[in-house]
């Protein structure tokens, strides 16, 4: 084989390895880009936006069914969407209804047991919560079980700890999106969006199973326990 042929073969082999590595990174590590659920379509200025979400202990919509996950209800179709990127109008009151189907855990940092950044710095809890029902401003996750997950937007100072159901509760959710007939709690709160921008949010219960101190897997993957609020004018 001539020198020119050998160089060509070597170059092709190198390019194939690079392309293969690129494919692996994009396909398996970065994963597909989650879709954005749009709450701005048809929104009348000055009117509040109603958003309904749920946090589930399992999901049937990914290759990792044992990962906990958020779901959001499409404002257009009412279907549960597996997305954590939500587009919201700026300077608008967002009324959130959150269904929590997961069991409770003690917070790693009890600071996240305080409701902050909502209207009145409170949330309304009902359903089969292990902790306190009614108007709640602080959840003590160490004494009342309390928190299953949090919805925390650091850039907005927004933190809402969702009270979970007891491990011993019957009729727990085993398929996500969870059916409303299974045991759950309901949390309602409102917040006002700021000006346009992209605000990341996360859960502050380290619920990524045992990886990376609990902050791997679902905690580190868009579409599960972390995402963005895309606030637009």
């Amino acid at each position, binding site marked *: 084989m001539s020198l020119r042929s050998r160089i060509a073969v070597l170059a092709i082999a190198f390019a194939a390895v690079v392309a293969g590595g690129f494919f692996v990174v994009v396909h398996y590590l970065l994963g597909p880009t989650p879709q954005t659920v749009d709450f701005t379509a048809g929104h009348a200025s000055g009117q509040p936006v109603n958003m309904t979400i749920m946090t589930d202990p399992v999901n049937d919509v990914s290759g990792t069914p044992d990962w906990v996950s958020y779901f959001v209800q499409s404002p257009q179709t009412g279907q549960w969407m597996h997305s954590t990127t939500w587009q919201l109008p700026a300077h608008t009151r967002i009324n959130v209804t959150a269904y929590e189907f997961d069991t409770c855990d003690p917070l*790693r*940092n009890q600071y996240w047991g305080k409701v902050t950044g909502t209207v009145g710095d409170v949330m309304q809890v009902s359903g089969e919560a292990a902790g306190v029902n009614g108007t709640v401003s602080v959840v003590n996750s160490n004494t009342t079980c309390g928190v299953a997950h949090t919805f925390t937007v650091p850039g907005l100072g927004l933190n809402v700890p969702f009270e979970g159901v007891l491990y011993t509760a019957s009729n727990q959710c085993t398929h996500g999106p969870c059916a409303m007939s299974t045991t759950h709690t309901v949390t309602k709160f409102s917040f006002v969006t700021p000006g346009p921008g992209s605000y990341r949010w996360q859960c502050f219960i380290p619920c990524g199973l045992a990886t990376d101190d609990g902050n*791997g897997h679902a905690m580190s993957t868009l579409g599960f326990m972390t995402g963005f609020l895309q606030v637009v004018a």
Partner: protein
Amino acid sequence: MAAATEAGAAAGRPEPRHGVRIAVIWLVLAVAADLVIWFVWGPHMPPGNMSTSAADQQFDFNVLSVIAAPVMLAVFIYFGYALTMWRQRPGDEEDGPGHLRGEARVQAAWIIVTSAIVLGLAGFGTYELIAPAGAGAGEGPQPIWKPAGVNTSSLTSWVPNTKNILQVQVIAQQWLFTYRYPQFGGMETTQLELPVGQPVEFHVTSLDVIHSFWAIQLGVKADANPFLDNVAYTTPEHTGGFTVRCDELCGIWHGAMYNYGSVVPVTAFQSWVKATETRLAALTKTLPPFALVYTPNEISGLAKFYYQAGLPGAGGQYYGPQDPEQP
């Protein structure tokens, strides 16, 4: 040099004193550069002078720059001079001088000057680390360089302008910093406010992985390790805002792990801390007692219950065999 020398000799011209030329050029430019660095650039050198540690670091950077600039200029001036004066001329086919000889004085000067610079900087750096109480860096759980004239006589109260130093605990977690003020009921908040002119003792720790607390304009940087209390000192000298960033790659939201703090007048700090202590009273009651380090999974009696019952608990590290901690 030989080509130019012999070309000059062949042309009957006296060979210029290249060494003197280079030295004069270097001296003029070095003095000018150092004056610009010290008086023009220096006052704007990061991290600024917002605190004692920041001002010390700025001074150190200025000193290093003033020393480095002449060295760098010497290299580039010689490089430029050689390219200009000793380049190959048209028709010059000579292949250098017939022999090379050593220059003992040049070699000795080189060794003496470089040794003096390196050893001098080593001594300067050591002094600048010790004198300003660790220079804003984390000194570990038992700091040996403390600010003069202060102590930790009370962990439950603080009064400005006394020897009792203000304590602030920095708690890092994926992916945000929170701050506890043990002398104000142990309250915890995401806001970092400091009084101007008052020494501060930071206690930096982590609840999960390794982070790094970097208060940029304060010139404070200390690693945040789980189960370890890393102490750093500074004294804010000017009011204003500063940025806190995590400086240790810590996961997916490392780049978003930042917030802002502010240095305010003492009276404003006292008003803020009192109002915040009151506002967070209900939360503070639920926090674990203040400690220099936390074992988050052991402070929770509930987590122990989960462990003993064989239940998984995401809040702690008591995972079941189906989810080993490090699969």
